[in-house]
C-alpha cells in the first residue's frame, strides 16, 4: 500500500466543533471508523471518519435495469469517468499523537479548504492506536483493525489499563462475546502476561481453555500456564464466609420477626466477627440452629416463628451441595499467576450463584486490600495474594442487575470503584446491557462492544459508555459476528476491530439442531438405538439330552 495515499481534499469545517469535511471519489477506503490525517505545521492531524454522504451520483433511472451497468450509460453519453460518484466525508479530529504523553493532542483548528487528506499508513496506525507492541509484556493482541485488510493493523490492548480500570464485553447472543473473552484469556495466559485470572462460567463454555496447558505457544522457560477447571461439584462455600445479608438473601420472604431472630442468632454465632476479617474463625450451621433454639427457649411465645426459621435454614442451607461447615475454595488456589480458574456454575440455582460470586469477590477484595496494605504478611495464609488478579464474569447482568436486588451488586460496586488501587480487576460480560446496573457499567473504563440490536440495550450503551463516539455506536447494528468496537482506557482511541482467531477451541458454539435431528435417523445410529432398547430374548428352557441339562 502507498504510504502517503491521498484520498481526498478538505472542503471545510464540519457541523460540529472538532469536525471537518473532505470530498472524495474513493468509496472503498473511506469506511466509517477509518483513520485519515491532514498536515498542519509539520504535524499529522489524525481523525476518524464518522459519516459519509453521496453528493454526486448517476440519475436513478440509469440504475433501473440491474442488467445494465449505469456507468456504461454515462460512458455512452460522454461521461466516461472512472469514478463518477462523489462523497462528502465527515471526520472527527483526534489530533496529533504525542509519543511522549502517549495521547492525542487536538490542535483546535480545522484544516484549510483544499488541504489534502491522506490515509494513515498501516505501520503508523499500529503505533498510534496501540500503546503496546505485540508480544510485549502487558499487551493483548485481540484482533486487527476492521477498516484495513485482515492482520495489516493489529489491535493490541493494554492489559495494565484493562485490569486496573475494568472491562465490559457487551454483545447480543451469538455475536461472539464468549469467543472474544476466550481470545482475551488466551492473551492473558501468554508468556508475556502470565495473569492470575478467574472466570465465572455459568454455561460451562470455557473448559476448552484446558488445551492451553499442552500448547507450545503458551510456554516459555519454566512458565507453563495452568487451567484450573472447577466443576459445580467442587464449588463450595463455607457457612462462616456468609454474611447475615447473604443468608437473608438465600432465605427470601422472611417476616420481620424471623429477620430479627436471624440477626440475633447470627451475631451470637459469628461472635461479632466479620467473615472477611477473620477467616480462621468458623461456625457451623448446627451452631446457628442451636443459637436459634436457645432464642426460642428464651422467648417461648415466638417458638413457632423460630421453628419456621430453623426449618427454612435447614431446608435451604443444611442440605445444600454448595454451602457447608468447613470446605471452601481457598483464594490462593483460585488465584495464582499463570493460572486461569474456571468456576463452572451450571446446574446451580441463580440465587446461590449470586451468593457464591459475592462471597468470592468479597474475600478476594479483602485479601488483596490486606496484602497490599501489609496487614497480611504470612505467606501461608490463604488470603495472602501478593499479585493483582482479574475476574471475568459471564452473564454479568445476573450478578449486577439493574432495578433488582442482588447480593453481589454491592460488592461489585465496591470493587469497581476501589479495586484499581489494590490490583483487583473485573471484566463483565453480558448480552443484556440494559439489564446491567448502569453504575456498574459506567465504571468499566474499557468496553468491547459487539453487535447489539435491542434498542434498550443500545440506549444503555450510549448513555453509559462515554469513550466510544456516538457515530461509532451507530455501527452497532451493522456489526457482524466477531467484529467489535473497542474503546476506553486500554486503547488510545476507539477502534473497530475484527477479533482474531482463537488458538484453543471455542466452547460456546451454537448447537446445530437440524444436524442432530438428521443424525437421529442415520442408519447406523438408528440400528444401534434399536439394539440398545430391544429387550433381551429369554433363554430357551433347558432340555435334557442323555441325562445332561443343555
Amino acid at each position, binding site marked *: 500500500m502507498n504510504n502517503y495515499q491521498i484520498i481526498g481534499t478538505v472542503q471545510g469545517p464540519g457541523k460540529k466543533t472538532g469536525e471537518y469535511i473532505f470530498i472524495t471519489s474513493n468509496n472503498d477506503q473511506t469506511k466509517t471508523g477509518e483513520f485519515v490525517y491532514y498536515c498542519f505545521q509539520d504535524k499529522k492531524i489524525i481523525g476518524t471518519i464518522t459519516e459519509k454522504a453521496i453528493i454526486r451520483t448517476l440519475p436513478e*433511472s*440509469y440504475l433501473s435495469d440491474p442488467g*445494465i451497468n449505469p456507468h456504461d*450509460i454515462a*460512458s*455512452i*453519453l*460522454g461521461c466516461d469517468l472512472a469514478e463518477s460518484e462523489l462523497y462528502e466525508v465527515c471526520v472527527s479530529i483526534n489530533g496529533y499523537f504525542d509519543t511522549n504523553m502517549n495521547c492525542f493532542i487536538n490542535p483546535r483548528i480545522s484544516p484549510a479548504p483544499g488541504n489534502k487528506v491522506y490515509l494513515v499508513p498501516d505501520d503508523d496506525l499500529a503505533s498510534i492506536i496501540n500503546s503496546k507492541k505485540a508480544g510485549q509484556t502487558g499487551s493483548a493482541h485481540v484482533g486487527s483493525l476492521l477498516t484495513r485488510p485482515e492482520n495489516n493493523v493489529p489491535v493490541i490492548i493494554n492489559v495494565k489499563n484493562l485490569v486496573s480500570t475494568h472491562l465490559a464485553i457487551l454483545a447480543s447472543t451469538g455475536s461472539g462475546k464468549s469467543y472474544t473473552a476466550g481470545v482475551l484469556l488466551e492473551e492473558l495466559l501468554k508468556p508475556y502476561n502470565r495473569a492470575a485470572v478467574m472466570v465465572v462460567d455459568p454455561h460451562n463454555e470455557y473448559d476448552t481453555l484446558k488445551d492451553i496447558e499442552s500448547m507450545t505457544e503458551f510456554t516459555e522457560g519454566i512458565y507453563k500456564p495452568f487451567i484450573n477447571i472447577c466443576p459445580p461439584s467442587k464449588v463450595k462455600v463455607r457457612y462462616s464466609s456468609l454474611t447475615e445479608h447473604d443468608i437473608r438473601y438465600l432465605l427470601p420472604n422472611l417476616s420481620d420477626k424471623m429477620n430479627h431472630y436471624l440477626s440475633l442468632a447470627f451475631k451470637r454465632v459469628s461472635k461479632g466477627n466479620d467473615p472477611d476479617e477473620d477467616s480462621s474463625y468458623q461456625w457451623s450451621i448446627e451452631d446457628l440452629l442451636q443459637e436459634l433454639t436457645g432464642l426460642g427457649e428464651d422467648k417461648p411465645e415466638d417458638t413457632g416463628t423460630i421453628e419456621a426459621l430453623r426449618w427454612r435454614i435447614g431446608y435451604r442451607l443444611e442440605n445444600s451441595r454448595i454451602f457447608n461447615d468447613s470446605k471452601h475454595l481457598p483464594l490462593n488456589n483460585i488465584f495464582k499467576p499463570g493460572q486461569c480458574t474456571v468456576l463452572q456454575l451450571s446446574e446451580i440455582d441463580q440465587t446461590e450463584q449470586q451468593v457464591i460470586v459475592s462471597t468470592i469477590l468479597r474475600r478476594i477484595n479483602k485479601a488483596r486490600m490486606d496484602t497490599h496494605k501489609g496487614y497480611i504478611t504470612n505467606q501461608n495464609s490463604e488470603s495472602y495474594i501478593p499479585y493483582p488478579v482479574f475476574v471475568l464474569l459471564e452473564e454479568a447482568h445476573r450478578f449486577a442487575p439493574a432495578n433488582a436486588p442482588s447480593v453481589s451488586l454491592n460488592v461489585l460496586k465496591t470493587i469497581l470503584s476501589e479495586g484499581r488501587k489494590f490490583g483487583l480487576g473485573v471484566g463483565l460480560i453480558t448480552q443484556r446491557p440494559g439489564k446491567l446496573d448502569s453504575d456498574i457499567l459506567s465504571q468499566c473504563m474499557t468496553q468491547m462492544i459487539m453487535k447489539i440490536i435491542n434498542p434498550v440495550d443500545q440506549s444503555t450503551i450510549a448513555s453509559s459508555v462515554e469513550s466510544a463516539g456516538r457515530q461509532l455506536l451507530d455501527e452497532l447494528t451493522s456489526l457482524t459476528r466477531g467484529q467489535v468496537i473497542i474503546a476506553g482506557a486500554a486503547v488510545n482511541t476507539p477502534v473497530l476491530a475484527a477479533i482474531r482467531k482463537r488458538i484453543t477451541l471455542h466452547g460456546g458454539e451454537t448447537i446445530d439442531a437440524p444436524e442432530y435431528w438428521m443424525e437421529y435417523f442415520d442408519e447406523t445410529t438408528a440400528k444401534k438405538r434399536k439394539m440398545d432398547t430391544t429387550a433381551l430374548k429369554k433363554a430357551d428352557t433347558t432340555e435334557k439330552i442323555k441325562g445332561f441339562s443343555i
Partner: protein
Amino acid sequence: MNIGKIIKSSSHLNYKCRIYGKNETRVDITEKDFHFGQFVIIKAFHDKEFIGIIYNSELYNPDYGNFGPRLTNPSDLNYVSIPDFIDETAIIVDIILVGWSENNLTRQETPPWVIPLNAEVAVMSEKEICKFHQDESNRFCMKYYNCILSHTGNFAPQLLLKIIDDLEKITECNQHDKLKLLKQHILWQQTNVKLKV
C-alpha cells in the same frame, strides 16, 4: 446527396440551411431527405467535414401577409415577360453541430472552426452514422447528448428520442437495451420532471 446549403448561423453550433428547391438539383429533394433528427454532413473545407443534426425547420415566404390588391401583371404574363423567375419561398432547417471529421477520423465534439456560408449540406448514410457513433475503441457513444440538451431548446427531448429510435434500427443489438434505458430516462424526465440539464 446534397440537400441544401448553409445560409446563416445563430451561434457557433447552430446553423441554418436552406433546402434546395425544385429544379435546383438534378434529383428533386423530397420530404424524406430532410427530416427532424436527420444526421447531415456539411462539407466546408477540402479536408474537414462537420456533422450536424436537423432539429428545427421553418418555411420562408416573403409574401406572407401580402393579401392586398396587386398591381403587377397576371402571373401568366409574367412567365412570358420575365425570363428569370425567382421563387423566393424556401424551407429553412436548423442544424446543431455535434461533431466533425478530419482525414477520415470522426469526433463527437464541438468543432473549433466556423463553417463558411454556402457550404454544402448532405445527408449522412446509415453506414456513416454508425461510424460516427463509434469512438476510438469502437465503443458505441453519444457524447453529443449534453450538447443537444443545452443548445436545441425545447426540442431537446423529442430530438433525443428520435435519434435513439433511429439508432435502434441501425446499431447492433447489444446496444438496444442501453438505448431503451436511455429512452425511458428521457421519457420519465420529459413527462414527470422538468428536464434537467
